[in-house]
């Protein structure tokens, strides 16, 4: 498959084969349907050093070359699978039980939203935001059965939700939490953390119900984000202080694109701890809690110099 791709060689010579054959032409060029498959390669493909965008794809006539067309189909197939495959909660819990630092999260509580299948879930975000009755009841039962000795209010509840990409949750939720818990353990504040909940067919706001029922001061929702063609495994994090049913996105802070090829776990965990600490200090989250960890990024790069206007 790689052999179809141009490497954009040092001479910068676009191939000069394959002139258009018009219908009226009786003098059909006999240039063989060449070994290149009549693909015109783009010498500027090397500019991919600057971007993951699909530039310099080349062309067959004016259309996508076969290899590029099929590569795209593969990416789309991966993204579709990320949306449609159910979250394997057994595997997730099994792995969780092997990670020492995540022990406080067990035993995991399994929950379901009011959207009871994928088709409903995709068309009815309102149902994905609400817990179904049996899920609600199991949280109520859990709280009733807690030991008297451990009845201090939880500082934090962690809610893992399949969202729009089970792949994101399956691959990234545990590694991220491991990094976060390492930071929490070193933190001067001693965090009292609720058992983890896992929600199927859920949206972000389902964390509000859960946080309220667990009487947690703050809730972190880890959810599979809408999968991109080049990022089927993006995990999102939403922090809500004082969660209760009916809040909207203005009450939340978000960290997006957590995955090895996006925002690395270490950085995401640092930002999450920053937000948690600030929320704890200010007793709020959302638009009034600004994430200032990024402020200097724009300031130190004001030049618009680029290769197109280099001279």
């Amino acid at each position: 498959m790689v052999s179809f791709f141009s490497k954009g060689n040092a001479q910068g010579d676009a191939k000069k084969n394959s002139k258009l054959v018009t219908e009226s032409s009786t003098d059909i060029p006999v240039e063989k349907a060449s070994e290149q498959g009549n693909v015109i390669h783009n010498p500027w493909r090397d500019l991919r050093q600057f971007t993951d965008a699909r530039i310099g794809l080349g062309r067959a006539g004016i259309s996508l070359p076969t290899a590029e067309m099929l590569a795209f189909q593969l990416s789309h197939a991966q993204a579709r699978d990320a949306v449609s495959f159910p979250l394997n909660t057994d595997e997730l819990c099994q792995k969780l039980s092997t990670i020492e630092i995540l022990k406080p999260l067990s035993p995991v509580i399994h929950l379901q939203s009011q959207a009871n299948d994928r088709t409903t879930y995709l068309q009815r975000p309102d149902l994905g935001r609400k817990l179904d009755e049996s899920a609600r009841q199991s949280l109520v039962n859990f709280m009733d059965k807690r030991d008297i000795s451990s009845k201090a209010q939880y500082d934090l509840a962690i809610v893992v939700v399949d969202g729009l990409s089970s792949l994101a949750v399956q691959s990234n939720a545990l590694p991220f939490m491991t990094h976060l818990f390492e930071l929490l353990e070193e933190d001067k504040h001693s965090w009292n953390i609720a058992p983890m909940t896992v929600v199927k067919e859920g949206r972000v706001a389902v964390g509000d119900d859960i946080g309220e029922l667990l009487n947690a001061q703050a809730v972190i929702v880890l959810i599979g984000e809408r999968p991109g063609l080049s990022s089927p495994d993006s995990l999102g994090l939403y922090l809500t202080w004082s969660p209760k049913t009916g809040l909207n996105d203005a009450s939340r802070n978000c960290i997006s694109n957590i995955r090895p090829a996006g925002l690395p776990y270490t950085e995401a965990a640092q930002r999450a701890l920053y937000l948690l600490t600030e929320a704890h200090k200010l007793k709020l989250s959302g638009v009034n809690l600004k994430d200032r960890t990024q402020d200097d990024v724009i300031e130190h790069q004001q030049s618009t110099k680029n290769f197109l206007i280099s001279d």
Partner: protein
Amino acid sequence: MGQYRYTLGTQTYQFSSLAELMAKASPQRSGDRLAGVIASSAQERAVAQMTLAEVPLKTFLNEVLVPYESDEVTRLIIDEHDLLAFSYISHLTVGDFRNWLLSDYATPAILSVVQKGITPEMAAAVCKIMRNQDLILVAKKCHVTSAFRNTIGLPGHLSTRLQPNHPTDDINGIAACMLDGLLYGNGDAVIGINPATDNVAQAIKLMRLMDDVIQKYEIPTQSCVLTHVTNTIECIEAGAPVDLVFQSIGGTEATNSSFGFNLNTLAEAQDAALSLNRGTVGNNVMYFETGQGSSLSANAHHGLDQQTCEARAYAVARKFNPLLVNTVVGFIGPEYLYDGKEITRAGLEDHFCGKLLGVPMGCDVCYTNHAEADQNDMDDLLTLLGVAGCSFVMGIPGSDDIMLNYQTTSFHDALYVRRVLGSRPAPEFEKWLTKMKIMEDASNTILSDTLPPAFAQSLKALQGGL
């Protein structure tokens, strides 16, 4: 409020308001189901369409769907309605209006005269009883042109927005996509960036980047950073090279409030952009984006169906003489438009309503990965819109927007439509493509096989060369 009735055999159907009738007459889509305004059966929908066909157009002037007192979009629609233009069609019902639009009396010249007499609700209503081929046929007769550094929307032409987005706004990454697009003959509608970091300083930086490139290569096109209208006003005050002012707009005042602006804000921005006097062949300085479902997602739909809300957004657009308006049809997700069929229908509806109301309508032919849609659905809609005379579509490398995480039409796709339908880029831009040796034969959409000299030089300047 009037009652609408229809008797079919022994059964009488009742619709308690015009809003309910409109909603139930809408072809099926998930957003109307989510809003709880959808017809309860296929038969009820068909009956609603028959009932709607009997409603006189005059009714839409007397029975407003969103209260006049509390909604400035309704006030705009009613206060600026042109009764003289309306007089051509004032005697018609919705059903007769469809016949009239399809008839040979409704020529491009007549349609442009009648345009100001048509309200968005009239357009939405007739749209609901038109088949896809009707939407295509009539839209093709509605000629809407606009201009800034080139002319958009001439019959037989299809322009593209070059959308060089990058997830961290990397300057060379954006420049690389611009080069790719230009060398594939794209970018005559606008070179427009959705910034990853949305603030005034970043917007100015991106505007300078695009302006430098447009000036250096003398490209007859315009640039736009798709930031909030109030940011763009600040950019203008700071002396930034603003060509077009962008804003997402909706069809109710409450939608627009949720977007953080009102009609006065748009007027202020338009004045500011006009004062820069940067256009060479025209003065259309606004760029709007819309999309079915935006009002519902802001809980600002007043019980209306999403297609009617969308049509009302075009009243907002036409007030400000935009260069470009596009419906981002499949971006919002499957809870509003579930699959390829619903996206296709909505794209054709929006294009038709926009053109009928005199708006320079383009379409972001697109889908997300959680919608039941794929590239074949996009090929279909793109082809249909090309036939319908759509003013412009998007162009991005390989259909993959790595910043916004959705798929839209590619640079290659635009060339495909130009080849199969013989449509051309904006004339000023086409001349430039030929002059720069990007196109070997622009009239047949044949690209040059060799790297155009002006760009070969820039690539050589890169460290290590290419």
